[in-house]
Structures are given as C-alpha cells and as structure tokens.
C-alpha cells in the first residue's frame, strides 16, 4: 500500500516536472508549439480551465450545503471538499497561465483592468473564491490545528497551542459558527465563478455555439455533476470507504447524478431549439457536433449517463463510486472540450451565396498564422476549418498541472488535519 502510494506520488511528480519542462519549452518557442492557430485560438488550456472552475465549485457547494441546508451527512467531508475547492480554483487560474501569450505582463490585469470584459471579473471571482475556500478550509480545520499543529516538512510542527478540553470545544463551536457565517458567501461565489466563466463565453455573439442564456446554467449543472464526484474521489483517498459515511457518499452521488441529468436536459433542450429551425449558424454548430465531433459527443453523453446510472444504482459500492466519479469526469471533460470546435469552426463571418435554388453559407477563411507544409506537400494558408487536436506540449502542460494539483492534494491531506477528530 505504502509502496503503491509512493509510486503514485513519484509518477505524479514526473508528470508534473514534464509539464513544467513543456511549459518552459513553450515559453521559449511561443504558442506555436500548441496546435491552436488564428482560426481556432483557444484550445485545451481553456477547456481545462472551464473544467477546473466546474470542479472547484463542487467543493464549496458541498461544504456550504452543510450549513445552509443543514446537510449534516456531509459534515465529515467538509474539510476535504473545501480543500478541493481551493485547489481547483488555483488550478483554474494556473492552467490559464500557459494560455497567455505574455504571462510577464499579467500585472496589466491589475493596473489596467477593463471591467467591460468578463475576464477581469472572472479573475476577481476566481481569486475571491480561492481565498474564501482557503479561509473556509482553515476555519474548519483551525481547532485541530490548534490542538495538534501542522507538521511542515523540514520545519516541524507549527501552530500548536496549549489548549484545554473546553478551549478546544469552544474553538470547535467557534469554527462551526464562522463556517455558518461563511457559507452564505461561499455558495453564491461558487455559483458565480461558473456563471462568470460561462459569461466569458456566452457573451460572445460571434460564437453561436456559446452565445445565449443557457450556457451559465449548464455550467452550473455540469459543476454540480463533477464537483461531488471529485469530492467523492478525494474523500475516498482520505478516508477510504467507511460504512458510517455511507449517507455522505450516497448524497454526493445523488447530487452528481441529478445534476448530470439536468445538465444533459439543458444541453439537449438547447439542441432542440437549434435543431428545430434547421438553418443558420446555430444549427450548423449543432450539425458539426453530430458529424465531425460525433465521437466526442458520444463520449460526453455516454459517460455522463453512465455515471448517473452508476451513482443512482450503486451509491453504496465504493468501487462503483470510483467508476461513477471517473466516468462523470471523463464525460464532463469531453463536454468542456466540445465547447471549442463548434464555436471556432463555425466561422462567424459567413456570406450567403445564392446557388440555383438554394442558399449556401460560405465561411470566410482566416489566415492560419504560419506557413505550414512544404513544396512537396503544401498546405493552405487561409482556412475556414481547423481540426484542432491538442499538441503534445499542450497535453504535457495540462497533465502537468493536473498532476501538480493531485500531488498538492496528497501532500496537503498529509500535513493538514483534514480528518475530523472522531468524537
């Protein structure tokens, strides 16, 4: 077990280091090493960002629900949930770094924010969320920190206070009280990060795949599907499956399953509307999903449905819980990725061309940004379609960030008193 764990940590460390190397390589060569180009200017990083925002939300929703809706079953995992919230909020911000052409100039976000743009808002809500979830986590853990301290590597134990039993009980009470007060801030923030993130995309009328009111609710439901799944996984790592946490897991599983179904409902509801009119950019975006991207679409639908099925059917089987969680993660990740191709590959500037008895929408091609190919195998400079597949570098960087997050989680749960002291 221990050996296994160590191997996993080592493996993750290797992936994280590779990711870092890949990022340095990207910094050195420019974003040319990604497979994004002018006609398709956001890719895996942005998809992952949207995904992380989703997963981040789940954490605080879970822990705040304890206090807001008195979902006591969730109490035992509150700290783990809050910790994942913090980590994924950080992850969401970190994964945007490699997407930025000039990370050295990020300070401009602070000195020249443009509040008409959704990005500064997203930055604000995300960082607030990260801060709040950090405070939340701290608040929940404080009594135990005070009791036992935190053992930092190379440094030793810190934060330990001499406490009496009553003192500790009082601290526990206080922490509960504070958490109760934080919950009404945390939950709306959790909702907000999705909403704002969705707005980053949904406000873009140039991109009919995103444009409109349905994206934010879909984002939230997607978040409520993945968030609990992440918490389930995290809790299983920390606590393992204990019978007395059965209720906790069942509740999480149900929340995820119901959200997943709601999400699919909203998704298909949007499809229906696009489909019915049977024409125009909205429809063509949909058509793309069912033609060129049918495989990816199948993945999202099948895995999300599968997870819902598993969660509802076997909420008490730890193995199935893991399967269910992984399956919703895969499904929602595919869903996130699918945000991009129909948005970019329906070129906004289309001109209707009247043929004999029909009108054909012709997409105005865009310069790729590079001369590709060679004399023996020339490739187009202006394209109206870009088959985006993430490059090795993008995959490595993304995997690196993911590995880093997991590592951080594993390390933190070792250091921090994430387990509630059994009373």
């Amino acid at each position, binding site marked *: 077990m221990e050996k296994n764990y160590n191997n996993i940590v080592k493996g993750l460390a290797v992936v994280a280091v590779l990711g870092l190397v890949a990022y340095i390589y990207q910094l050195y060569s420019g974003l040319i090493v990604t497979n994004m180009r002018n006609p398709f200017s956001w890719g895996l990083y942005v998809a992952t960002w949207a995904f992380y925002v989703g997963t981040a939300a789940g954490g605080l929703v879970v822990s705040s629900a304890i206090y807001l809706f008195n979902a006591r079953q969730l109490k035992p995992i509150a700290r783990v949930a809050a910790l994942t919230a913090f980590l994924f909020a950080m992850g969401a911000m970190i994964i945007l770094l490699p997407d930025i052409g000039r990370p050295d100039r990020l300070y401009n976000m602070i*000195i*020249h924010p443009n509040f008409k743009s959704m990005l500064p808002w997203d930055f604000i809500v995300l960082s607030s969320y990260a801060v709040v979830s950090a405070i939340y986590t701290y608040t929940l853990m404080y009594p135990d920190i005070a009791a036992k301290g935190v053992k930092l590597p190379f440094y030793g134990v810190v934060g330990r206070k001499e406490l009496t039993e009553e003192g500790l009980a009082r601290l526990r009470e206080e922490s509960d009280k504070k958490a109760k007060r934080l919950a009404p801030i945390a939950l709306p923030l959790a909702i907000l990060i999705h909403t704002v993130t969705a707005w980053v995309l949904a406000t873009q009328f140039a991109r009919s795949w995103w444009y409109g009111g349905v994206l934010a609710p879909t984002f939230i439901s997607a978040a409520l599907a993945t968030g609990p799944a992440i918490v389930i996984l995290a809790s299983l790592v920390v606590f393992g499956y204990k019978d007395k946490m059965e209720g906790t897991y069942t509740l999480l599983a149900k929340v995820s399953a119901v959200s997943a179904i709601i999400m699919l409902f909203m998704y298909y509801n949007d499809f229906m509307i696009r489909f019915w009119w049977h024409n125009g950019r909205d429809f063509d975006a949909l058509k793309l999903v069912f033609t060129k991207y049918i495989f990816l679409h199948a993945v999202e639908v099948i895995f999300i449905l599968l997870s819902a099925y598993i969660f509802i059917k076997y909420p008490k089987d730890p193995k199935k819980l893991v399967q269910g969680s992984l399956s919703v993660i895969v499904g929602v990740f595919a869903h996130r990725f699918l945000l991009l191709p129909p948005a970019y590959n329906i070129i906004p500037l289309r001109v209707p061309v009247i043929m004999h008895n029909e009108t054909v929408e012709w997409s105005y091609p865009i310069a790729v940004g590079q*001369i590709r*190919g*060679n*004399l*023996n*195998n*020339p*490739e*187009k*400079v*202006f394209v109206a379609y870009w088959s985006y597949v993430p490059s090795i570098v993008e995959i490595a960087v993304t995997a690196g960030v993911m590995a880093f997050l997991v590592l951080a989680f594993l390390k933190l749960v070792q250091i921090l008193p994430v387990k509630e002291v059994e009373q």
Partner: protein
Amino acid sequence: MGVTRRDFLKYCAIGTAAVAGSRYFQLAHSMQGDNAAISYIRSTCSPNCTGACGFNAMVYKGRIASLVQAADYPDKEYNPRGCLRGQSMLNLIYGPDRLKQPLIRVGKRGEGKFKAVSWDEALDYTAEKLVEIMKKYGPESVASTIQVPGTGYVNKGALMRLSSMYDWSVIHAYTMNGDLPAFWPMTFGVQTEELESLEWANSKYTAVFGSNIMVTRVPDAKFLNISRERGGKFIMVDPNYTPTAAKADEWVQINSSTDAAFALGIVYVILNEKLYDEEFIKTYTDMPLLVRLDNNKRLLAREVRSLAGAAAAMKGRIPEYRELYVAYNKKTKGFVIPNPENLKRDFDPAIEGEFDVELVNGKRVKVKPVFQLMSEFINKEYTPEKVARIIAPEEARVREYTDKIIKLGREMGTIKPLHIVYGASNYQWFHGDLKGRALSLIVTLTGNLGKPGAGISTYAGQYRVRWPLGAWWAYKSKAYKWLNYLLWMNDEYRNTEEFNKYNKEIPHPKNGVKAFVFGWGNPFDQHNMSNRMREKATKGELELIVSTDFQMSTSCLWSDVVLPGVAWYEKYDLTATVSHPYVQLQQPAIEPLFQCMPEIWIFKELAKRIAIKTENEEILNSIADFYVNPELFKKEEEARKNGSWTLKLAREIAQQASLDAAALMLKTGGPQVQDITVDMLKQGPVRLNLPTPNKRQIMFYEQIMELQPFPPVSYPAPLPKTARFVKSGRVEFHKDEDVFIDTGETLPMHKDPFVDTENKTPGVKEKYKFALITRNALYRVHSTHSNNITMLELQDLKPKVWLNPRAAAERNIKEGDLVEAYNNRGKVYGYAVLDPGLHYRVAIFEEGWWSRYLKGTSYNTLTYPWIKAAHLIYFVPGMWEPTTAWNETACEVKKAEGVKHA
C-alpha cells in the same frame, strides 16, 4: 457621440499615463519617430508586363523599407498604378535567391553547382570563351536576346550595342514570346497599335476576346469598370470564365480558338443588315480594290491596258514599296488607280459587283472588289447558324448561340465607339493571325478607327519601341544580324520543303547557335519548348550560356556564367509602355546589393575584354565610345591603372553613363520625345508627344483624320521595311502573296485549331483531348515572382491545373489531387482545381512557375515550336517573322502517380 464620451476617453488616457508612470510620457514626445531619416525615390516598376507603374521607394538606412505607388501621373485617372507583385518586389530584391556575385559553373549543366568568382575572373572567362566561339564558328553563332525593350532602353540597349559591335545574331524576344500578333502587319502594316488604357473609359462598347484584363493588366483594369459606370457595355469572349468575364455584362463561352468564326458571324450580321460604314471602307481599306478571279490576286494597274500608261507615270512618284491597284469608279464608270500615298478620294469606288477588264496582254479577266468577294465568302461560310455550330460549347446550345450572334452583331454594328481587345493568349495559337484579321474586320467595317475609344488593341508585354533608339542601341550605327528563335528551336522544320518554298529573307547562322547570351528573361522555363533549350544545353550543342539576372532563376541554373545584374531600384534606366504613353525613369533608390552591377557596366566590360582578346584594332581604338561619354570610360580605365578602382567608383560611373545614354536617346529620338529631358523625367512621368488631341494614344489618328497612307512607322524599323506589308497604303483584308493563296487564306477565315498542327501526328487527336492553355497568373509576371514568398502564400504554394468538373470526374480527379498534364512531348505537375467556368475541353496551367516548384517538370516541355508558313515570307524582326503559338498544345490530364509527397 457626445461630449461625455470624449471626456471619458480623455479621462482614460490620463489615467493610463498616470498609472504606467513617466516612461510613457517620455516616449510620447518622440511619438512619430525620426521621420526625417526616411527618404523617397521615384522609380518605375517594369518587369515584363505592360504596367510600368511609378513607385516611390521608401528608403531607410540604405534599404528599401516599403514601396508606395507614386501616383504622380498628370492624368489623374491613372493614379495609382501598381499591383501586388510590384508591391512585394522587395521579396525578390532582398530575397534568398538574390545573386550576390558572379558565378561560374562547376557541375553539370542545369545541376546548379557554381563557384563564386570575382568580376574580373567572370568577365575574362566569358570574353575568352566568346572570342573562341566567334573565331571558330563566326560571330553570328553567338546569339543574344533581351526581353521587352520597353522596360529598360539603357541597360538592355547595352547588350544590343555589344551585339551590334561584334556582329552577333540577335533574337527578337517579341516573337520568341509569341507576343507578335501577326495580323497587325498583315492588315495594317504595323507591328501593333493600341489604345492607352485611359481611352477604354471612352468606349461605349468593349468586346474582349480572350484577354484576362483583370489579371494581366491590373493597373489598367479599372478603366473597363469606369466605362461600364459611364453606360458602356463590355462583353467577354473566352472559352473560360475569368475575373474579367465576371466583370463583363456578358460572357460568351466559345470553343477554343474559334474566335475567327465568331467574328465572321458578327461580320455576317453587319453586312446583311448594312451596318457598315460604306464611306469609311471606301476611303481607308482595300475593300474597293479589284481582285482577279483567275488567279485570286489583286488587279495591278500596270496589268490593265487602259491604265498601264498612267500607272507607269505614277510609279515614279511613289515609293518603291508601294504598288498601284485598281478600283472601279462609279462616278466615271471606269477604272481608277487609287493613290497609295494619299487616302484623299475624288472618286466613288464600287465595292460590289463584277467587272470585266482587259489586260495589257489582251486577255480579258473577270474582277471583283474585295468587298464583294468577302461578302460572298462570308454569306456562304459564316451564317450565324454555321458559326454557332463551330463556336458553341454544346450541341444543345446552337440555337441560343445563333440568336446571340445576331444580337451581338447588331450591337457591335451600331454602338460606337467600339473597342475590341484581342488577348495575347488568344492570338498565341497557330491561326492567331486569321483570328486577328477577322476581328479587325469588325472594327474596320464599322469605322471604329482613328477615334477616341475606338479600335482594336492587343496588349502583350511592354514591348513596342516608342521612338528611334539607334543612337544608343547600335554601336556606330552598325546594323544587327538577326535570328528567329523558332527556327533555331525547330531544326527539322528548316529542312522541309515548305520552309524552302516560302522562306525569303530570314537569316540563320551557318554554323548554328553556339553561344547564347541573354538577360531579362528566363528562357529555360519560359521558352524551353519540347525541352529543346535544355537538350541543346545538355548535349553540348550550345557551347556557352551566359546570363545576367539579379536572382538565381532556372535559366541562371542552366548557365555557364551568371553575371549578377540589378533591379529597377538600383539603377537608372528609361522606360516606356503601351498601356499608357508616359516616358519614365528608373532611378537608384539604393546602391546595388552585394557585388551586383548595372548591366550597362557588365556589357561594357565584356565589350572591352572581347576587343582586347580579339586584338581588333579598329574596335580597340574606339572602345571608349561604348559609353556615350568616352571620358567616363577612360576615367574608369585610368582608375584601374593607378589602382584607385573600386566597385563603388565603377557604379558611379555606370550610373552617370546610364543617364548619358538616356539623354542621348531622348535627344535623338525625334518628335515623339522632343523637348523631353532626363531632368524632367527625374521629377516624374512625361507624356510622349503624340500627334493627337491631348496627345492621347489613339490608333491611326493621322491615317483616318489626315488621310495619310497606311502604315504609320513602327519603330525601330524604317518605313520601307514595313510599308511593303500593305502595298496599297490601305487597310488590307485581301492578301495575295503566294502563301496566302496556297493556304486559302487570302481573306479572313476560320480554321480549326490543331488540324494543321497536333492532329497531323497520328493518334494525337484521340489521345489528347484537352487544349492546354498556359495563361498568365495574377501572382507572377511570367516567371518573375515565381519565388516571391508572399505570392507563394497567396497560392498555398501550389501550382495548379484548372479543369472543368465534368471533365475531371471522367478522369476520376478530385479537387486538390496532384495531377499530371502530359502529351507525347512532356509533362507538368499541378494540383487540380475544379472550375465550373472552364471549358470542357480545356486544361489550364498558369505559366511562369520555376521548375523548382514543379517537381522538376516544365510546362513548356508540352509546347512545340510550330511555324506557320505565312510568317516566313518577310523578315522584319519582331514584326513579321515566325512567332510562337503556346496554346496550340494538346494534352491529357491524369492523377499523378508515384510522385514523392514528403
């Protein structure tokens, strides 16, 4: 936008500066940069297109940063001139293929292995070899050629000066290119004529026959649009839909090379509906002249018993190149001799009817006026139905085409001024001359000559010499020897009976061509017919190949010596084009790059070194006169002797010598350039002194308005050389030299393509279904800009083969497939483009790709040096001599197989 918004913006601006700190404030002061460091020099873009567009080179720190259209033409409508190629010329001047220094071949021919050498070594080596060849085979075995004189009278003149100095053979590039529209000398006795493009706007009807103006005349194309905006009509006759067709009111798709039939169908309507200008044709054309029915020759005045005396008397008063013909005067009811030297008419000739005439020998023969013969012929052969059958792309559309011909005939017969543009690609067919003669008939019958916006124009490269240049081009007025390119390429034809029967005047070096010296051209791509250039090089038949270019073209790769010249932003030169009648200067905006030298210097050095090596006392004594000012020559020699010679000094001297040569040509150029000086040209373009109102370039103005005889002079040929083409002094539609009678081409007529050429080889007709039309590309001027990276980008780096979708489907070819166009002579690769506007039996490849881009193939391996007998009977270089027919090429297209992709 109210004040609030403005204030808001201001507020933002202040906020920005405050936040970012003082750095921005400092920079704000130096906002415009140091504009003073930029200077502009005017020069003229002049590759082998008719553009000659004025550009200001934006020079910064000794390099050209950008090019800005000069837009300084006094006729404002011309501004701006320029195009995508001219704008990106910098990619060639500074590009990776730019030559740096002289090269001598070390590898095999065409392999591209060279050693870089000093100028002295290169020039001495070249001179040595040339002298050897001149001694061994005679000086005429050295052939030289320059492309399109109009783009550089000074530097191109220098090679001509050198050629005349040593009696080399000169190849006239105009016929080499196929740019000569042979109908011009046949019909009007001139090399060519045309409207300046500004005049297009004055036409009320423009009929374009296979000239892709929107692509091949980019800076002029707007005048067609303007003509439409002013209510003019514009139709495009072309087998293929083109951007020009897109702009036209009507596109008439016809079968390849059936324009003559179409034109004669139009003439049929004009004749039958009496839409012709009878007075006009009586005065200016041979329509009233009588033709003997017994021998199909025009009746000569001296043959007619009643006129022989008068003819003899007149003979002494007319130049030797004229002939006296006969018309029937309706006023006096007798025969009359129209004066070939004056078109003023005091008689009323019959243009119809049949007459009996008694000859000096007592024989009576029947005669008919040309008009009568022509009418009979056309009424018989070219009824709209018959024509429709020839030209309509589909059997099912014959009716529609019949109606169309009638409709268009009426339009062309009535709407004036009518202007016909006869495209180069259209006349670059074996029977291109017949098509031109038929089209000329339309404008002539309707009196559309000599007036603004009227006429027939052909526009090829910028070719036509606008005034006498001999003072510079011919060394001490020495005449050149000449050589016809096709007769050089087509050895076997020179042994045929046909050739020996008709050839009267065309010279050919007795030992063949042993050395080839050329500049401003890329013959190993552009003129490599049936691979013959390359074969002559590989087999060693050519012993020396010398090229001058500013970049490493395919032809440079095939050369033994490459002498690096310069482009038009590095030298002085004089240019003149046909699309607008402005004389312009090329001026050095920068020093020549690397060791490149203005060509005038290169050829001067060769002249000198050859003189020394041949020990030709006479030339040696006067060699300093190679430069107009011998002092300059001596100055450089002096510097060499005392060791103060530098490349820079040689350049300065060469630039001055160029200006001197330009000044000399202007001074000795006669009335067209009278009072035009180099200093004026340094300021900007100056219009030629044309003898028309507002100096507009209108064709045959003096003939039509002042009744002067045809033809006007075609420079540089003296009038007697060209006037013999139209001995009657009139526009001639009936040609009676033997060859025309033998081929049945006395009158304009239609002959199907390929019948007299490709299809004579058994099996070809069945095997090769397409006509391969190698039209000109938007992205190149011929092969120039082939390697322009910006142009390559716009084409996705792909040479293409355009095919009709149906034809492609039959061959299982899909959009984007790599295909091979081939025939029994050669092949070329390209990527298939399916074009619904393409004729079903046409494959298009846009010429001009360097072989490097064609996986080593060459489009010109498919073409053939066809020679038409009618082109042999006279020889005036560049005016009447065999000319190339690029499009007379049958081919088939298939998917390319076994071609390396990666």
